[in-house]
Structure formats: structure tokens, C-alpha cells
């Protein structure tokens, strides 16, 4: 127990406020998940004897959603590959860049702060001038700018386990850059790399604002879902939302558990 935090009133107060934060973040999605198991049309929590997978089964017959799902999976796969490789290289560059490090870090994460609508609009007018018709590739290029800063930060965070002394020792023993990178750095940053893969995939798969100006004829899944959410359509949208929330949380949980296990 840290000094200054011994009194139970203080701890109770801090825990209560932490609970408020957790409720704000988790109550609505968890409630939505509950609603998705209700076979009734009106959104409400199902009674315990009435839990049903009806809307989840109905998902299989939603052709439009499945096509959009395909498109989103394709885009996310390409984004993941490119952003992970670029992020690893960018993080390795960080090691070499000496005094330019801070500038390099800022440059790579800056696109994260550009509003999605503005970035999407800017890319779309430029592509339009280049006679590049919108298709899944243009969406992927837009998503790359969103995924790369996160992937880079995650890989960089895992770089803290690479001590300077390891690299100096390896160099003394005659290991060249490739050898040091493959035998020391990459194994040590593996959790960060896995994090970059999973996070890039999820960020692209779930991205909405950057897609709207860049998408071609075939909608991505979030765009399709946005339409369905606003047209007051069938509760299958709750099932799909619930499914995506569950899978995303599970994937992030696995990455974090791996990182914690390695550290702990």
C-alpha cells in the first residue's frame, strides 16, 4: 500500500469513481450484447428463460452484410500486412535515429490527430485527380494512416525490453545489424509485433469516418451497418454488433494476456 492511500475512505472514494469510468465505457455495449439475445423485436434485456440465438442465425441470410463483411476483411488484411511491416521498420529506425527520435515519433503519430472526415476527403479528391477510381484499395490506403500510428506506438512500447547493453554485447562479439535484429531485437519485441497485427486489423475493420469518402461500389461493413442502424431495421444489427464487440474484446484480451504473461 502506498503512503497517503491508507485510509479506507480515500480508497473507497477512488474505487467508486473508477467504477463510474468503467460503467460509462462498458454499460452500453454490454447492454447491447444482452439485448442481442432477446428474440423479441423491441430492444430490451431478455428474461433468463428466453435467451435466444435467433438474430445470430438470421445473420447468415443477410447477403448484403456478408458481402460488406468480405470487403472489410480484405481491406483489414491488406492494411494489417502493410502497417505491421512499416511499423516494425519504423521502430527499428527509431533505434538508429539518435537525436531525430522525437521528431520521427511525432511525424509518424501525427496523422492520428487529423479528423477522419478531413483525411478521407483530402485523399478522395487527390485520388480523383489522379483518375484513381474508388475501390477497396483506396479505402485501405486511408485506413493505413489510422492503423500505422497505433501499430508503431505498440511496437515501440515493446522496444523497452531491448537493452542497449544487449546490442553492444552482440556487436562486440561480431554480430552485424541483421544478426542483432533477427536474433535479439525481433524476438524481444514479438509481443509488440503481435499487438501491432491485431490492433491494425481491428482498427481497419472497425473504421467508419475514413471510409465514407473513399469507398467504391461495395460498402465496407461499418458503412453498411451505419445505414441499417439508422433505418430502424431488424434486430440482426444487434447480433452483428454484439458479435463484433465480443470478438474484438477477446482478441485484445489475448494480446494483453500474452504481454502481461511475458512481463510477469
Amino acid at each position, binding site marked *: 500500500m502506498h503512503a497517503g492511500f491508507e485510509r479506507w475512505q480515500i480508497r473507497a472514494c477512488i474505487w467508486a469513481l473508477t467504477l463510474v469510468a468503467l460503467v460509462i465505457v462498458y454499460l452500453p455495449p454490454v447492454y447491447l450484447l444482452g439485448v442481442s439475445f432477446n428474440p423479441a423485436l423491441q430492444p430490451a434485456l431478455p428474461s433468463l428463460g428466453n435467451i435466444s440465438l435467433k438474430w445470430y442465425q438470421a445473420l447468415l441470410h443477410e447477403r448484403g452484410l456478408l458481402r460488406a463483411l468480405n470487403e472489410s476483411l480484405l481491406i483489414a488484411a491488406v492494411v494489417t500486412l502493410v502497417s505491421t511491416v512499416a511499423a516494425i521498420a*519504423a521502430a527499428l529506425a527509431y533505434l538508429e535515429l539518435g537525436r531525430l527520435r522525437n521528431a520521427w515519433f511525432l511525424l509518424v503519430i501525427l496523422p492520428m490527430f487529423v479528423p477522419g472526415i478531413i483525411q478521407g476527403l483530402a485523399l478522395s*479528391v487527390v485520388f480523383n485527380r489522379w483518375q484513381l477510381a474508388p475501390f477497396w484499395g483506396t479505402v485501405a490506403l486511408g485506413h493505413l494512416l489510422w492503423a500505422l500510428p497505433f501499430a508503431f506506438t505498440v511496437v515501440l512500447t515493446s522496444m523497452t525490453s531491448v537493452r542497449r547493453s544487449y546490442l553492444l554485447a552482440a556487436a562486440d562479439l561480431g554480430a552485424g545489424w541483421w544478426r542483432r535484429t533477427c536474433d535479439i531485437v525481433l524476438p524481444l519485441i514479438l509481443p509488440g509485433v503481435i499487438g501491432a497485427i491485431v490492433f491494425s486489423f481491428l482498427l481497419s475493420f*472497425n473504421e*467508419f469516418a475514413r471510409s465514407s469518402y473513399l469507398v467504391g461500389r461495395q460498402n465496407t461493413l*461499418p458503412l453498411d451497418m451505419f445505414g441499417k442502424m439508422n433505418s430502424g431495421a431488424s434486430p440482426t444489427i444487434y447480433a452483428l454488433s454484439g458479435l463484433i464487440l465480443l470478438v474484438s474484446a477477446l482478441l*485484445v484480451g489475448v494480446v*494483453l494476456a500474452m504481454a502481461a504473461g511475458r512481463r510477469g
Partner: protein
Amino acid sequence: MFRIGRGFALASPALLLTLILGFAPLAVVVVWSFWAWDPATYWIRPDLSLAAYAQIGEVGRWWVIVTSLFKAALAALACLAVGYPAALAVHFVASRRMALVLIGAFTVPFFTSYLIRAFSWRLVLGRTGLINDWLMQAGIISEPLDWLLFSDFAVMIGLIASYLPFVIFPLLLALRRVEPSFLAAAQDMGAGFLRTLVTIIIPLTKPGIFAGFLFVFVMSAGSSTEVQMLGGAGASMISIMINDVMRVVNFPLAFAISTVVLVALIGAVLLGNARFGLTRLFEDF
């Protein structure tokens, strides 16, 4: 052993992606914001005109920009108020195991769909939603409250819920600078909890407070999902305004608004970095 040349070679993929896909199109937009609309080609032609900027002054567009930034600042302050105790809990109060669980709980939202999370607030805030249900059952109200959903209130709640994790991580990084011995010393000299908080913990975590504020401010100012999902019919935020302007293909105006917003937001990030060294927060290697 470390070589700058190799550094540049390794940096090139991310550098090219960021420059070509990120900065170049934005620079083009800034330049095009000074061009003029050409009705003959349905496109713009080279010019040095401030007409688009003058148009921002019409029909209250400045007001939308200013109120958007104000709402974003409010959301950032609210996130700090809710996030600071949570960061204290993770750093000082929770057991090691519990701290890891909490960190995990605040990481998951970064990577789950902002669209779905905003949508789920509709189920909670709607006329037949969770909160109206509870309040009616408890007999506090007899009619469902209408202002809970499709209102500025709903947008604010949506923004706080979406971007709360963005304050917690800078705060956690900053809290590592608070040595336990400082707190013990304060206690020995008779300082109570509040005094320790105000005179030691908060001043030492200023860079984290500032970084967290900046993250939420910038993200909220540019947000579109939360407003589209939760805002009322008249609700306007910068991104909605840009969409509306694009619907009538007024390119120069859309570019001018984008330029103003970019200058404000990127300016805030760079100023914050110069003043507080944001990059230092992430650097412990």
C-alpha cells in the same frame, strides 16, 4: 553501432506512407482552398481567392467551428475528471493483478468499434431505453425524458465514453514520475490526502494531464460518428458541416473549413509538444 543512414532506410516505408498519403493530400487541400469554383468544369481553377474563407462567415459557420471546439474542450475536461481517479486507482490503490485487469479494461475500447459503441448508447438513452425505464420504474418521472437522446447531452456522453481511455494512458505514464518517497515525506510532515494530491501528485503529472486533454480535445473536435449517431436534427459539428458542404459539391468551402480546423488542431498538438514534450511521455527507452 547506430547509423543514421540505416535509420533513414528503415524509416522510409512509414515516412513515404505518411508523407504521400497523409501530408501531401492535406497540403493540396490547403492550396486548393484558395482556388475558385469553376461552374464550367464542375471543378476548381487556380486562383488566389479568399472567397471560400469569406463563405465560412455565412450562415453561422464560424459559430459551428467555435462551439465544436468548445464542446471538445468540455469533453476533454470531463474525461480528465472521470479518468484521473481511475488512473490513481491503477497506479496507487489496486493490487498488481487488479491493475493489469483495469489497464486491460481501458485498452479494449481503443480497438472496438466506435460506431457500435456510439450506437449502443441509443439503447441506453432512448425513450424506451434503459435510463428512462429505470427512472419511470422508480417513480421519479412519469413521462420518458426526451432530451437524453438526439441532443447535445447525448453527444457529450458519447464523446466522453469514446475517448476516456485516451486520458488514462498519458496519466499512467506521468504517474510513474511520482516517487512513493515523496508521498511518504508529505505524510510525515502532516499533509493530508487532498493536500498531497494538490501540491505533489497533480503538479508532477501535469504533462500527462495536458497530453490527455489534448488527445481527447483533438479526437472530439474531429469526431463524426458520435454526432451522427447521437446528435439531434440540428446538431452540428465540424465534420457534419463538411459533409453538408460536400453534398452541394462546394469544394473550396469544404477545403477552407478543413484548413481552418487542421491549423487549429495540428497547431494545438505542436504547441503542446513544444511546451510539455509529449514525446517524452512515451519514451522510456
